[in-house]
């Protein structure tokens, strides 16, 4: 049995770890609330954007547009949104696994646009090429960041360096459920945009475009991409904090459980040492008399 001093030391160390995890949990709870409100307030913009763009594409069935057809041979680009900090359970690893698990995204012909150090390092270790690193963005995502990234990606797409663009992020379903998702950004898939009420379709069928449909599409697709990336960034931040909150919660619970066990062990050891001492004293007294 471990000595009393050892147990005491261990208990103290677990106690301080537990205090840290508890504090981290509280911090991420507050951050979660904030990031969640932010993510929710950005949803109307994205939904409206999606409705507009899918209505446009629906009626422009045979429109030829550079963003609608797959580029020539080129690598595939993946925007991997993870966090800069660890201790969030499987949060970062899930994104890395999601990308690696996709047979279309082999390390050899995929470029990573990393947002978040953890995902960048994880993917780099697996042999993926990191084309760009925007890790600072995840600390405080701004719409401008998403717009800048979009410009860079569309540039590369226009030059034919990349043929497809994907977005890997963690969808924030609720506080405990976060789903890693891989979304294809470009070329835009028409099939994805289908469900709509008849009335709406009718109203939009008469839509005029100024200056003309192609130019409007030229304008809107980058905005659509930016809004998607921005939305994903906000969702990812909310998911990160949610994941960390859960991880820290279970860590705190584990620490408490261990403390309970150590407490019992410590008391046994204490009792044992007293019994032993008594036995020794009695034996000594007996020997004298």
């Amino acid at each position, binding site marked *: 049995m471990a000595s009393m001093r050892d147990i005491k030391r261990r208990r103290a160390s677990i106690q301080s770890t537990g205090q840290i995890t508890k504090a981290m949990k509280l911090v991420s709870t507050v951050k979660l609330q904030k990031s969640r409100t932010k993510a929710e307030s950005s949803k*109307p*913009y994205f939904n409206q954007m999606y409705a*507009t763009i899918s209505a*446009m594409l629906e009626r422009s069935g045979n429109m030829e547009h550079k963003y609608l057809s797959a580029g020539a041979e080129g690598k595939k680009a993946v925007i991997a949104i993870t966090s800069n900090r660890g201790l969030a359970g499987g949060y970062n690893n899930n994104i890395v696994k999601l990308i690696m698990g996709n047979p279309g995204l082999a390390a050899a012909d995929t470029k990573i646009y990393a947002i978040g150090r953890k995902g960048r390092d994880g993917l780099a270790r697996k042999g993926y090429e990191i084309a760009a690193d925007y890790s600072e963005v995840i600390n405080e995502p701004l719409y401008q960041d998403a*717009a800048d990234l979009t410009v860079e990606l569309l540039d590369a797409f226009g030059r034919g360096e990349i043929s497809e663009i994907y977005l890997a992020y963690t969808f924030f379903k609720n506080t405990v459920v976060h789903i890693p998702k891989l979304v294809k950004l470009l070329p835009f898939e028409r099939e994805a945009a289908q469900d709509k009420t008849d009335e709406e379709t009718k*109203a939009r069928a*008469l*839509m*005029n475009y100024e200056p003309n449909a192609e130019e409007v599409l030229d304008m809107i697709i980058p905005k659509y991409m930016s809004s998607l990336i921005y939305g994903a960034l906000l969702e990812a931040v909310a998911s990160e904090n949610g994941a960390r909150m859960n991880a820290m919660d279970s860590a705190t619970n584990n620490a408490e459980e261990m403390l309970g066990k150590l407490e019992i062990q410590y008391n046994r050891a204490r009792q044992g040492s007293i019994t032993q001492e008594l036995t020794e004293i009695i034996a000594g007294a007996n020997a004298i008399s």
Partner: protein
Amino acid sequence: MADMMKLTVITPEKQFYEGEVSMVELVTTEGAIGVYPNHIPLTAVVSPGVLTIHEAGEKKQASLISGFVTILPDAVTIMAEVAEWPDEIDFNRAEEARVRAERRLAANETGLDTLRAELALKRALVRLGLKH
């Protein structure tokens, strides 16, 4: 109410404005337009300008920098990347931006920078125009 329509202005951060209006004025790439209810369906690209909202008896103004607008007979939706009410605008910053842009234009370099400076100047002027 037959002569009212629904106006929604959404920015990436939040729902900027929502309400019943009688007319909306804004600037598109094709020029300034005023939209009354029962307009033909139209989607247009916004260029920097002042957004004027005519409510029942009131007139509201805001800056509208970029985005696009979807007009239906009974509703107008503006997807704005940047939009601000006059009290949200930092006029000192706008003034600085104006001076900077003018200097850059005065330096008279050609290429992308001129274009950028012109856009910056336009933005600054729109914002300053809302100062009362």
